[in-house]
């Protein structure tokens, strides 16, 4: 292999680049990014960076300067020709490859209706955080956050913490914040948010926005009430950045790139066929090795992006015959309103939740999630020490699982 192109310079792409060199790849390595920024880490964006606890320089991804790549920044990939093995960029130029790493990640989902010209933001990248901070520093005090998933809750917490007198209202169409984690966590988060002064509007959707001139002036809820707003943050999830791959002949279920257990991209059409020159890593991947009871699930976690980036690169160099399967217990963390929340496995996929240590009243607990009696995940709040044991149990269960296709590992 002489020419490898990595598309995407987030964590998965940077880990892939570093891993290629660590495994002895000495050929030409090109990393393409649609951002102009140096590669940066994403988890601090909505927490420590927005509050100013860390500076932009502190969140640069380590190692990105060290692996001798040609960087093509501010250049979006717009097409892939697998037969000619070329990636086409927005300026019309092409990059040839004999190995390709797809790590384009995801974008913030945009509001699906009309929004005022100014004052309605999404947060995914460094630029977005700068824009949000600028709006708050410029005087916005009535802030409505739409969506109480991880990004929405972290932002509500950070904006409240700023000490600038920002009044945050968190609107969520489902009845509970962070409902993906299940169990008692939602209630703990809701209570902590209220105590911190956040107004919660749960179980009510957003119908649209009111404008004052060009700017947003209010948020109209499904029940007809209008919340005053000088700034709105729409945090309704993310969409994988695979528009550029449509038509390339790869399998794109749910808009993600389907890959086998060794992270090789599956092609569209004939079942079971992969492209041996293309590997997938990070938020953009829909990987056969990351499964719930009814099939693969996407993971949008830091640890997944890091681990897949490393393995994808190794497997690309090794080739499909010698490649290793992706073995990974999902792990995730977030923190908001003084609650440090960690999870392993896939807690949202269980049918029974048991508090196995601590209790909701104390604000410290470990919950285990079971499906048909088998452990599928665990969540801790301010009590992370036991999660490693749960991760070990999940790994053992996985090792005993039947492998798709019938043989037993």
């Amino acid at each position, binding site marked *: 292999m002489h020419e490898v192109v990595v598309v995407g310079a987030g964590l998965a792409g940077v880990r892939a680049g570093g891993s290629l060199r660590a495994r002895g790849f000495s050929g030409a390595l090109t990393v393409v990014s649609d951002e102009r920024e140096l590669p940066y880490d994403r988890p601090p964006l909505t927490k420590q960076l927005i509050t100013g606890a860390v500076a932009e320089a502190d969140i640069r991804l380590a190692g990105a300067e060290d692996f001798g790549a040609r960087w093509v920044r501010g250049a979006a990939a717009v097409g892939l020709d697998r037969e000619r093995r070329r990636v086409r960029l927005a300026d019309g130029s092409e990059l040839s490859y004999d190995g390709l790493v797809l790590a384009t990640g995801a974008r913030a989902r945009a509001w699906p209706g009309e929004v005022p010209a100014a004052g309605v933001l999404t947060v995914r990248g460094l630029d977005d955080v700068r824009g949000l901070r600028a709006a708050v520093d410029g005087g916005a005090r009535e802030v409505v956050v739409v969506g109480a998933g991880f990004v929405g809750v972290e932002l509500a917490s950070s904006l409240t913490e700023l000490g600038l007198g920002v009044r945050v209202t968190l609107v969520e169409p489902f009845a509970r914040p962070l409902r993906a984690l299940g169990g008692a966590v939602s209630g703990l988060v809701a209570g902590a948010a209220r105590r911190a002064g956040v107004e919660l509007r749960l179980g009510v959707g957003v119908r649209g926005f009111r404008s004052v001139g060009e700017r947003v002036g209010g948020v109209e809820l499904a029940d007809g009430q209008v919340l005053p707003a000088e700034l709105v943050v729409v945090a309704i999830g993310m969409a994988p950045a695979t528009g550029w791959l449509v038509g390339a002949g790869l399998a794109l279920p749910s808009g993600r790139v389907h890959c086998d257990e060794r992270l090789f991209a599956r092609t569209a059409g004939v079942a079971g066929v992969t492209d041996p020159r293309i590997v997938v890593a990070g938020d953009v991947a829909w990987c056969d090795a990351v499964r719930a009871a009814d099939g693969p699930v996407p993971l949008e976690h830091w640890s997944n992006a890091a681990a897949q980036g490393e393995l994808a690169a190794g497997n690309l160099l090794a080739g499909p015959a010698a490649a290793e399967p992706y073995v990974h217990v999902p*792990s995730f963390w977030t923190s908001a309103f003084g609650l440090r929340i960690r999870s392993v496995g896939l807690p949202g996929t269980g049918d029974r939740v048991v508090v196995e240590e601590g209790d909701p009243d104390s604000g410290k607990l470990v919950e285990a999630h079971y499906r048909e009696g088998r452990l599928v995940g665990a969540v801790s709040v301010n009590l*992370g020490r036991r*999660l490693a044991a749960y991760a070990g149990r999940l790994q053992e269960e996985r090792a005993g699982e039947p492998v798709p296709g019938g043989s037993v590992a």
Partner: protein
Amino acid sequence: MRITVDHDLCDGLGQCALVAPEVFSLDDDERLVVAPDPAPELAGRVAAAARACPVRAIAVEGA
């Protein structure tokens, strides 16, 4: 193998403990505890644990 933890950076996220639980663990207050003198055969896992740290608080020499 020499393991150094920068406790100013460490946020008790516990990702290292998921990768190499024989060496890294958290206490009741989610502070990191590192076992002394890990066995040499754990070197690969310790290196992987350091790479799994999102805040790069772990340095390993001689792994």
